[in-house]
């Protein structure tokens, strides 16, 4: 069996996707998101953890099951369902811990936080970060942070209750259902030696590659969910005496969106498969998957909103929920242009 056949999910993956889709849908992502805009706490971690979803993609020796491809298949379902439970944050935290070799034993006990910021970590493990947005930062469990300095990168695992860690700024505004609060780490914030690593700046993309694949999978799901919603809408909605979905201009926009979603999904699967292989190629593949998935999610959610017409700006419509989720998630690990730039630099280094 040659490698490329892995691009077709196997029976286990498909069964996982089906189960996840049904269960995540039962958690009513859109409804919970709408309630979160009114201030209620989204929650939902217990259901997801009890269902074993937090174990997917974690190596067996650490007590998990499944491969990275299963993880991305599942995260796509989470994105599609607008899942509010912090499954993505946990995945990002775990993959980054493993890539940097600082993983904790308790990583699955509580929803983890994840963030990237500029700052400095001293030789004694003391951190200083002026402001870092932490995905899932409300969960109370440890934050896994990637701290970019002028010449090094550090990965640190910090407890939100540790001395020097303070919440700053207001609530998450774009998508309050996936909390993304900001924190400040004063210089008194210390991290135990086994919980941080210093890396060369050039290792940043190697460390982030797994996180990028996870974010990309979630984004593909958001795009796919938005496409489903858009198609459903244009089949129902009539204008000028026919279903809106019969207009060629609408059909072509949706056909392009479909092609874009399939392309993004291919890149995500490819990125997931490349993670175990050459680090440079994996970094490139994960950058490209992240960039394409981010653009696709924003584009399809925007199209959904536009095709909804005036209904698209009402609170009751789902399209703004997809747009909120798409924008917040697309911005997690850098804007697409910056990722394309980084990928092109890697490719030119490899090609010459």
């Amino acid at each position, binding site marked *: 069996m040659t490698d490329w056949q892995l691009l077709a999910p196997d029976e286990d993956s498909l069964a996982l996707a089906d189960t996840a889709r049904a269960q995540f849908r039962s958690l009513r992502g859109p409804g919970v998101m709408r309630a979160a805009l009114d201030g209620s706490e989204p929650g939902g971690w217990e259901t997801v953890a009890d269902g074993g979803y937090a174990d997917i993609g974690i190596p067996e020796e650490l007590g998990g099951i499944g491969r990275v491809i299963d993880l991305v298949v599942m995260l796509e379902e989470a994105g599609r369902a607008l899942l509010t439970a912090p499954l993505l944050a946990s995945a990002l935290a775990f993959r980054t811990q493993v890539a940097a070799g600082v993983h904790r034993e308790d990583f699955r006990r509580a929803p983890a936080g994840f963030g990237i910021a500029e700052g400095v970590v001293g030789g004694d493990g003391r951190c200083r970060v002026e*402001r870092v*947005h932490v995905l899932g930062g409300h969960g109370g469990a440890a934050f896994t942070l990637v701290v970019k300095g002028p010449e090094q990168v550090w990965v640190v695992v910090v407890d939100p209750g540790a001395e020097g860690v303070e919440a700053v700024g207001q609530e998450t505004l774009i998508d309050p259902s996936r909390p993304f609060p900001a924190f400040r780490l004063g210089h008194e914030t210390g991290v135990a030696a086994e919980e941080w690593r210093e890396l060369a700046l050039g290792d940043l993309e190697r460390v982030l590659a797994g996180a990028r694949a996870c974010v990309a999978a979630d984004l593909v799901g958001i795009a796919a969910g938005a496409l489903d919603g858009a198609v459903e809408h244009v089949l129902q909605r*009539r*204008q000028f005496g*026919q279903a809106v979905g019969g*207009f060629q201009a609408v059909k072509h926009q949706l056909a392009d969106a479909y092609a874009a979603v399939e392309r993004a999904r291919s890149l995500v699967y490819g990125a997931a498969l490349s993670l175990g292989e050459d680090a440079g190629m994996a970094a490139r593949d994960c950058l490209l998957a992240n960039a394409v998935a981010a653009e696709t999610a924003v584009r399809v959610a925007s199209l959904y909103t536009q095709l909804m017409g005036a209904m698209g*700006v*009402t609170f009751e*419509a789902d399209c703004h929920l997809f747009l909120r989720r798409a924008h917040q998630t697309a911005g997690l690990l850098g*804007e697409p242009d910056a990722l394309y730039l980084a990928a092109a630099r890697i490719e030119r280094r490899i090609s010459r």
Partner: protein
Amino acid sequence: MTDVTSEFEAFLDGFLPADYAENYRRYRRDVRLRTEYQAAAFDAGWLVPEWDRGEGGRGLSVPDALAVKLAGARRRVPRLMNIQGAGVAAPAIRSYGTAAQRERLLRPATRGDEWWALGMSEPGAGSDLAALRTTATLADGVFTVNGQKVWTTQADEARWCALYVRTDPEARPHRGISCLVLDLRSPGVEVRPIRTAGPAVESFCEVFLDDVKVPEDALLGPLHGGWGVAMSSLEHERDMIWINTWLETTRALEPTLTAPELSEHQLVRLGRSLADAEGVRLTGLRTAAQRWAGLPSPASSILKLLGSESVQRAALLSLESAGARAFDDPALFDERLESLAATIYGGTSEIQRNIIAERTLGLPKGTP
């Protein structure tokens, strides 16, 4: 700068707070300032300077009036509280109203003392006016109205509604429509605001009409001639909407223009958006100039098309290039969401493209 614009600038200097330019994003939500501005500008003849002095204008020529409007846009004058009153209803009353209607309605609509809603869209019909189903039956000098309107901006706060109704069900779809001036306090009118996804500047409502009685003299324009009233008032709006679009684009770009640091590729996108803004401004002006000179001008549909794209790209750029700041500044996402609706108001981009292709390029009408 001409004399007339410097006079207008002097009026603005006198009226606006000293810190208006720096804090206009905050003043944009200042209801009192906006209300007072509209009244003061109207009283001074600056709100519709092309109208005669007796009507509350200054009798300015088209070029001078446009110069005043541009000067206002450059200064980002306060947004009117009820745009469709002064911008759509008032011109329609002025063109089609009886003497009594003009006397009673024109000034308060333009000055902002009485707000207006536009009763066009209906559930299931959207922007397709020909498909409207709300009926009005005339008997004994009174119309009895039944039906439902939707996406009616500010109907919850307006006093009047320019209500489009079907008065001749036998006629061809666009021939049997009339426009009535509906007092929204009439019995049988129920207005329900629709909650919006973001903090919308103006409310959206559903309006239910159940055996509403409207006196015959509330007919605006000819009986069964409502299509013409609608087209002429929408055209008025469409011809000037580009000034607002240009303003919205430059406003959306401001966070990016003044951002401390931008990467090269963000600068490229900023340059593209500057070209968008200039494209809207210069095409709007060129269209006005060519019409004023009696020359064929670019199809006005392109202003709508260019304008939508312009606002959308600018809002997307500002949201994406803000990086983590986007998670702290609610306006960035809200403006992005609003910008997507820009292709909807006043006809979708698809409709504009059809109009250009068929009327300007002469392509076959064809089934859609």
